[in-house]
């Protein structure tokens, strides 16, 4: 049993949430949810974005108060009115967005909230000692004196976990912990979680990635639109039935892809180099051709030049050397606007930053790039509202975008729906070349499936498609060819029929 540093209180053996209801203005976020978790098990909460997973857990952590229902710890009713009370009851939470003060050190971040009396002196030495004991136990290397911002995301997450354990969490909530991790880091995380489970911790794992859920869970509860769809043991669960429970209809997980009909070269990169934001050559001597009707997948661990690759093609990043041609026309150094008119469409990685303007409405975002063109504008001056409204309503219908109206600010839509809107806008121009960077990251299964189908349909019409993704499953499911990037270079090219997952993994790690 893991001893907790703080107290000798009774461990959480059983936590029950009964009939939990939570309403937000206009939304029933949780509708009569029953959820229990025991010491020594991983109970997964599975559901699409907006299903109510985070809301349910925030009530357990004292960030929200339930409108109805009760929480019991070891059979006794508990009221958890603040995170402080949750921590005192032995509940810890790893949030979707890490809860750190980036400028403070690891030890300081752990010390935060440990003693809330105003008079006491900081004892960082003691905390460092406790932390190193814990990091030995879980076989994690952590330097307590390093500022958080200097740590990689995976390391930050480990600090979050250690901090929760240090603070005496018997029950740990992990809200989409794998969303930010590479496959290797996910393996590391699961190793830690397995050890915690053996140590008798109760774990709540939140995800919408099915293979992860199947790999780590004992039990799985599925939520959809705030309601509880069901609870099953992992032995009875399959990707197919889980996906169906999540989405509420049968979901295609394997696509039928018609044979490749290669057209002519649409996009060609010739020995292209570009600097990354850090100033080094993020893209180093990359040559690549993408043919019409072909999907080329770009695999790699994040930060190995994929983003720079997408940005140079989209005209968002200057190139240092080499040439880029679209349909034989040299486009190196052209503006994004010019790229658009040459038929290059770009689905950016950071859709909230580069893809949409958060404060603008759905309609405004839809015409973001074409606002000055007929038929949206007359003579490039006055916006033509009726035409815009019609186009917008059509896109909402075609792309199954869930939005209350065309005048809703885009920021209140879910990630999947925003991505569908970006897709609708980018595909409306019948692109010659489509760059899709992480098109389904943070997007739920139903919407992902839809986006994949759209990309495949685009392939059918002869568009040359470059698909950049950290999700190997996605790359494998869609690509005709896969290129692997490592440290800014292309280190391997594999045809669809020759794909071998181990070999891909090795190339991604730079072993080749």
């Amino acid at each position, binding site marked *: 049993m893991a001893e907790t540093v703080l107290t000798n209180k009774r461990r959480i053996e059983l936590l029950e949430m009964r009939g939990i209801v939570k309403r937000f203005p206009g939304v029933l976020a949780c509708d009569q949810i029953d959820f229990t978790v025991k010491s020594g098990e991983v109970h997964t909460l599975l559901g699409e974005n907006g299903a109510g997973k985070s809301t349910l857990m*925030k009530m357990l*952590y004292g*960030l*929200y108060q339930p409108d109805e229902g009760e929480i019991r710890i070891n059979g006794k009713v508990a009221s958890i009115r*603040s*995170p*402080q009370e*949750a*921590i*005192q009851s032995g509940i810890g*939470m790893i*949030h979707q*967005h*890490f*809860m*750190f*003060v*980036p*400028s*403070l050190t690891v030890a*300081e*971040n752990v*010390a*935060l*909230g*440990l*003693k*809330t*009396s*105003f*008079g*006491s*002196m*900081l004892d960082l030495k003691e905390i460092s000692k406790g932390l190193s004991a814990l990091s030995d136990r879980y076989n994690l290397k952590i330097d307590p004196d390093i500022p958080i911002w200097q740590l990689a995301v995976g390391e930050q997450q480990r600090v979050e976990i250690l901090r929760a354990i240090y603070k005496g969490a018997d029950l740990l909530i992990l809200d989409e912990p794998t969303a930010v991790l590479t496959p290797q880091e996910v393996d590391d995380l699961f190793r830690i979680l397995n050890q915690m489970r053996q140590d008798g911790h109760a774990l709540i794992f939140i995800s919408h990635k099915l293979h992860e859920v199947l790999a780590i869970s004992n039990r799985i509860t599925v939520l959809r639109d705030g309601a509880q769809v069901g609870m099953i043991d992992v032995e009875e669960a399959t990707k197919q039935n889980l996906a169906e429970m999540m989405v509420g209809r049968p979901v295609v997980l394997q696509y039928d892809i018609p044979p490749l009909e290669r057209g002519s070269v649409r996009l060609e990169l010739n020995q292209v180099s570009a600097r990354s934001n850090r100033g080094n050559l993020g893209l180093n001597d990359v040559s690549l051709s993408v043919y019409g009707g072909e999907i080329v997948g770009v695999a790699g661990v994040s930060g190995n030049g994929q983003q720079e690759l997408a940005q140079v093609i989209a005209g968002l990043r200057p190139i240092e050397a080499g040439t880029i041609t679209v349909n034989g026309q040299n486009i190196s150094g052209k503006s994004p606007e010019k790229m658009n008119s040459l038929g290059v469409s770009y689905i950016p990685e950071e859709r909230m930053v580069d893809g949409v303007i958060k404060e603008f409405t759905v309609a405004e975002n839809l015409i973001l790039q074409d606002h000055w063109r007929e038929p949206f504008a007359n003579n490039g001056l006055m916006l033509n509202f009726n035409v815009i409204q019609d186009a917008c309503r059509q896109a909402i219908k075609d792309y199954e975008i869930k939005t209350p109206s065309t005048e809703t600010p885009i920021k209140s839509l879910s990630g999947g729906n925003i991505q569908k809107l970006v897709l609708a806008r980018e595909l409306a121009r019948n692109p010659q070349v489509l760059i899709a960077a992480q098109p389904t990251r943070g997007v739920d299964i139903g919407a992902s499936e839809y986006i994949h189908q759209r990309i495949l349909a685009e392939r059918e019409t002869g568009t040359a498609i470059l698909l950049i993704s950290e999700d190997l499953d996605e790359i494998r499911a869609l690509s005709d060819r896969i290129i692997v990037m490592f440290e800014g270079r292309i280190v391997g090219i594999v045809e669809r029929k020759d794909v071998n997952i181990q070999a891909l993994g090795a190339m991604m790690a730079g072993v080749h």
Partner: protein
Amino acid sequence: MIGNIITASVFASMIRLATPYLFAALGETLGQRSGVLNLGLDGMMLMGAFFAFYAVFITGSLILGLIAAIIVGGLMGLAMAFISVTLKAEQGISGIGIFLFGLGMSELLFQQWIGTPTTVSGIPDVYIPILSDIPVIGHIFFNHNILVYVAFALVPIMTLVLNKTNFGLMVRAVGQNPEAADAMGVSVTKVRYTTLIIGGILAGLAGASLSIAQINVFQQNLTAGQGFIAVALVYFGGWKPRGVMLGALLFSFVNALQLQISVVGVNIPSEFSAMAPYIITLLALVFASKSREKPDALTKPFERG
């Protein structure tokens, strides 16, 4: 010539003039490190200055004067906290409201309760055996009233509190990332109320250091914008007590020099010193963007969820 101007007296006045800035700006530093910009500082100083003066005027007790400044300053801080933390009002606007209230109220009460300009006998300079007798040095450093020493002692104390105590850690965390602090069980509200009340108390003392120690009078708008300069000094000092002290010294050196110049009768336009606050403010903004200690959540009200 230069020797006539830059004398030991100039340095002594520099130290003396820096005192109200130090009190006010150190309090403001604490508040800003917790994420609250208090633009009402000048109004708080005026209220502190008036009540300290009034208490001494009525009772003749300097202690009561200081206590009055502390209470009134604390209450002003509480008001600022209520408006900006509990009601989550826009901090810039609520600060200006507090300033206007302090400006108007102190003048009104002065007209009602005292009426004509008078002086009180203020806090005397402390004679420190031996130290005060050292030539030059003694004159510059060891010939001041007690509030001057308190203000300078607050610099290391504030540094210690911010960096070495749990409270300081909470303040820094709440100013940088209140969501994280809240999730770790720190009450953002409590921390911000505390820093603002302490800031108010120090602003009250800043006012008292003018009205019952430095000039020993009260008049309408006695502070003449010193509170606003104190806010700029926080930026100038990069949110660090020592930086704030350097800024306060630099600024009051310019002031002291200007006084001396007018005494000696050198022909330098008085606009020169009138420009100083603006130059300081501009410098402050240049430096501010470079400081690592700048609180990310400055001016942002916190709401859970």
